[in-house]
């Protein structure tokens, strides 16, 4: 072995990995797997964790690399799994699966300090990539904490740590992460954002969330059981009353016998009909979470479209770009409005009455019967329909039974069980069959009003579908048939049946709603901090629109100031603590005499020092002589000086004032 050749006192360059850093490395990799567990198949994560544990156990017994053929087999298995599960190795989710596998592979072959450092660097990168899947506050903090084992591994790879140094290993990283936080925040604020991605389209291939572009029976079901936040709304004045909290998403005109689709009448080329506002408008700000779709939501009914959005003829808002990031917009709505009260454009009217031939004969017959009895009274027909839902034995239940080809007939006369989309669909169908122009609107309704932070929290489970009918003289009027249903059965799959007011409050949901304030703050200040907010960053310094260059300069200044401050902090000397009271008193005396130009030399003993001081300060020589005798006695003559004498010495030193010779 080399160890014998080296001269005594020589360190053999520690290239082999000691047990402590290796264990810490395994912990780091385990953290990485945990961070990615949410979006990888559970069995895959579990398998990687088992391989990692086996490697840890193997290396404890016998520190050597895992055989090459085993590693190659695992590489093949990782790639094959990614392709088998996702169909392609390219993309975010398969990419995450592959890099996690590769990281565990790296641990299998880590035997040197260099390997371990590479693995830690790789692990940091993969930790960051976990945030591409979830940017929520809790997860970000969790991933931030996962940097600690990574830094502890780096620390443990260095010398000077006790063998059982778990806590000392974590110390440096914890201190540095905490101390670096202000600098990190400033860097975060000032790093110039890219106006367009450098490569690829971010978030492509992500499952779209939120309300879709069509409505078939059961489509909304997954949404209504989803507690994810859809948007947050802050009102300038008082919030609208609960009965008016309808957020318009899109309008569906065309029914194909099974599903409701936007149809040609929703084409955005036509201009919206003018709105007759009867009350003062409500001004508010919406923070819409990414849906990866184009639809924007506004309180019924928006007066104008915000920047970057187009208003359709049916007063829906359509963003020109897909909403891939949290979007904030200010908008005004009229809650008391008239839409096209005088007349309806013939094309629109035709679209609002169109029904596919050959579907649902019994529903048509029912509606035609209402029309015969009611004559020209549209309001009576609407009443008849709502009465049917109210008294016809209809049940609100998220677990609605499947419907056949004549879905409306099946629902109205057979199953009589469903939720908002069934009722809106059936109601609109009945209206059209009776000759009343009608359309389906989907969006959100209700929400949780946070009185503390004064904003309305709307979750995906607040998704709702309702109808609008056109009445001569009144224009388009909102009718919510679901509200007419009396009997409610809460879905077993989740307590999210919020479209019947107050129905869906299970035990911890109120707390989640209240604590959403923090998430809202995070979403607004951190996740929603984009190039535009950054441009306004330097406003307090008189710069209206900060360019990337200015931000770069500011960033450079911050980096230098931070490093300078850090250097200052680093040079602070810890005050060396004297070991006992006697030494402290003696140091105090020396300090006092040093101000009189009598500094004790490195090689000067106390007796000589006292003698020199007494000679230099003749007026104090008597006092110094006493002090010298006492000090020498206490320090050298007795093995354990009595404490009261030490106290006395300390007291005398405190009261000692050297007297300068007055000439």
């Amino acid at each position, binding site marked *: 072995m080399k160890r014998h050749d080296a001269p005594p006192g020589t360190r053999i360059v520690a290239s082999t990995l000691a047990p402590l850093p290796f264990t810490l490395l395994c912990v780091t990799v385990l953290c990485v797997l945990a961070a990615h567990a949410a979006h990888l198949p559970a069995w895959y994560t579990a398998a990687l964790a088992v391989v990692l544990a086996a490697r840890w156990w193997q290396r404890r017994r016998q520190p050597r690399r895992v055989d090459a053929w085993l590693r190659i087999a695992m590489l093949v298995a990782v790639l094959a799994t990614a392709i088998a599960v996702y169909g392609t190795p390219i993309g975010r989710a398969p990419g995450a699966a592959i890099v996690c596998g590769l990281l565990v592979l790296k641990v299998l072959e880590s035997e040197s300090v260099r390997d371990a450092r590479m693995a830690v660097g790789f692990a940091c990168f993969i930790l960051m990539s976990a*945030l*591409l899947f979830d940017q929520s506050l809790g997860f970000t903090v969790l*991933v931030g904490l996962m940097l600690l084992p990574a830094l502890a591994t780096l620390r443990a790879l*260095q010398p000077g740590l006790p063998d059982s140094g778990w806590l000392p290993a974590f110390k440096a990283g914890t201190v540095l992460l905490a101390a670096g*936080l202000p600098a*990190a925040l400033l860097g975060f604020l000032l790093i110039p954002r890219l106006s367009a991605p450098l490569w690829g389209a971010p978030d492509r291939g992500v499952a779209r969330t939120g309300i879709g572009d069509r409505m078939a029976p059961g489509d909304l079901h997954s949404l209504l059981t989803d507690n994810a936040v859809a948007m947050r709304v802050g009102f300038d004045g008082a919030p609208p009353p609960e009965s008016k909290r309808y957020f318009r998403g899109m309008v569906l005109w065309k029914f194909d016998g099974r599903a409701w689709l936007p149809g040609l009448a929703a084409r955005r080329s036509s201009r919206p009909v003018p709105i007759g506002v009867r009350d003062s408008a409500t001004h508010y700000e919406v923070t819409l979470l990414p849906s990866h779709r184009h639809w924007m939501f506004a309180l019924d009914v928006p007066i104008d479209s915000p920047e970057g959005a187009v208003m359709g003829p049916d007063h829906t808002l359509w963003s020109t770009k897909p909403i891939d990031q949290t979007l904030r917009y200010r908008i005004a709505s009229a809650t008391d409005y008239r839409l096209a009260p005088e007349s309806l454009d013939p094309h629109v009217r035709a679209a609002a009455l169109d029904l596919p031939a050959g579907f649902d004969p019994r529903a048509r017959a029912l509606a035609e019967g209402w029309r015969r009895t009611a004559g020209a009274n549209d309001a009576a027909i609407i009443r008849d329909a709502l009465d049917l839902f109210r008294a016809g034995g209809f049940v609100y239940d998220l677990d609605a039974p499947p419907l056949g080809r004549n879905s409306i007939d099946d629902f109205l006369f057979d199953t009589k069980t469903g939720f908002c989309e069934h009722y809106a669909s059936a109601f609109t169908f009945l209206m059209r069959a009776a000759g009343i122009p009608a359309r389906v609107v989907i969006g959100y309704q209700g929400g949780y009003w946070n009185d503390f932070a004064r904003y309305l929290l709307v979750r995906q489970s607040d998704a709702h579908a309702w109808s609008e009918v056109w009445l001569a003289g009144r224009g388009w009027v909102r009718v919510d048939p679901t509200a007419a249903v009396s009997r409610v059965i809460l879905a077993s799959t989740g307590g999210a049946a919020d479209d019947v007011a107050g129905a869906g409050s299970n035990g911890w949901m109120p707390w989640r709603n209240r604590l959403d304030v923090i998430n809202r703050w995070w979403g607004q200040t951190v*996740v929603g901090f984009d190039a535009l907010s950054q441009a306004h960053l330097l406003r307090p310094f008189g710069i209206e629109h900060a360019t990337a260059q200015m931000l770069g300069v500011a960033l450079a200044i911050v980096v230098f100031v931070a*490093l300078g401050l850090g250097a200052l*902090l680093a040079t602070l000397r810890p005050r060396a603590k004297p070991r006992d009271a006697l030494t402290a008193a003696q140091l105090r005396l020396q300090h006092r005499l040093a101000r009189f130009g009598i500094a004790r030399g490195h090689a000067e003993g106390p007796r000589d020092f006292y003698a020199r001081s007494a000679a230099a300060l003749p007026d104090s020589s008597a006092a110094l002589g006493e002090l010298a005798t006492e000090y020498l006695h206490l320090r050298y003559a007795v093995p354990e000086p009595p404490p009261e004498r030490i106290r006395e010495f300390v007291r005398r030193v405190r009261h000692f004032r050297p007297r300068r010779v007055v000439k």
Partner: protein
Amino acid sequence: MDGVAHRGSIAAAARALNRIPVLARGRKPENLPVTLDRRRIYIVPTRAGFGFGLVLLVMLFGALNYQNNAALLLTCMLGAALAGSMLLTWRELHDLTLRALHAEHGFCDARLPLQLVFADDGRNRPGLTIAVDDLEQPCPLRAGKERARVTMPADARGWIEVPRMRISSTLPFGLFRAWSWMTPAQRVLVYPRILADVQPVVRSDDPNERIAGGDEFAGLREYHPGDPIRHVAWKASARHAHLLVREFDRAAPGQPLRFDWRTLSGIDRETRISRLTGWVCDAYAAAHPWVLILEDQRAIGPANDAAHYHRCLTALAELP
């Protein structure tokens, strides 16, 4: 071949760098105590440091490209922590004061142990490494335990200068290396090389007496330059390819051995000194009293204690 040329060019570049005055601080001998202040501490990233810089850059561009602020924040946190580690690395060396340096006893051609006494400033410096002639030696310092032991090369006997030392640290993460030079203006004594190939020829006070010490004939051994001609066993040598000399038993206990410069003739000066050194060491190990007679007839001893041993070795080391 390329590798050699490459290494040569690196060495040339290093030599050129050493001439730059800013980088040469601490290379001239200085009187103790020497304090490392901020002007003489240098710091650069290690290879691992550059690697981590690359990782940070990739993370930064990934976060910016995906317009993901949480990832960007994480990258900033990691970057700030790693940049902060630079200060901790630097702080390992900052304000380090070398108070004193004691040489222990060592012989030429072995490494000479040095004890370094640093000032106690109440700070732990667990990652300190001191390199003397490119041999890195870890010297962890703790508050209250401010002594370190290193070895320096000793390839000539006598008083030699303490070579330049490089004090460095890569703590806490091994991403930066801070270093500083220190050349204490101090000379240390190196005892001569030990040559133990020949048993001493022990002679009595009278140079004409044939054999002193032990009269008993012990055996034959191969001739080494410096052996007295009178001890050569000519008859026995005639039957062998080499000259053989007669060996005799040691002097009786109690009677001092005499190691005389003059008995070693016919060999060069350094070999003589080395051989005498070897004998002195052997005698001291056997706790047998001895007398050392130097070139100028100066006799040291007889005695067999440590003080005598060191007096003899010092005298030998200081020979011109």
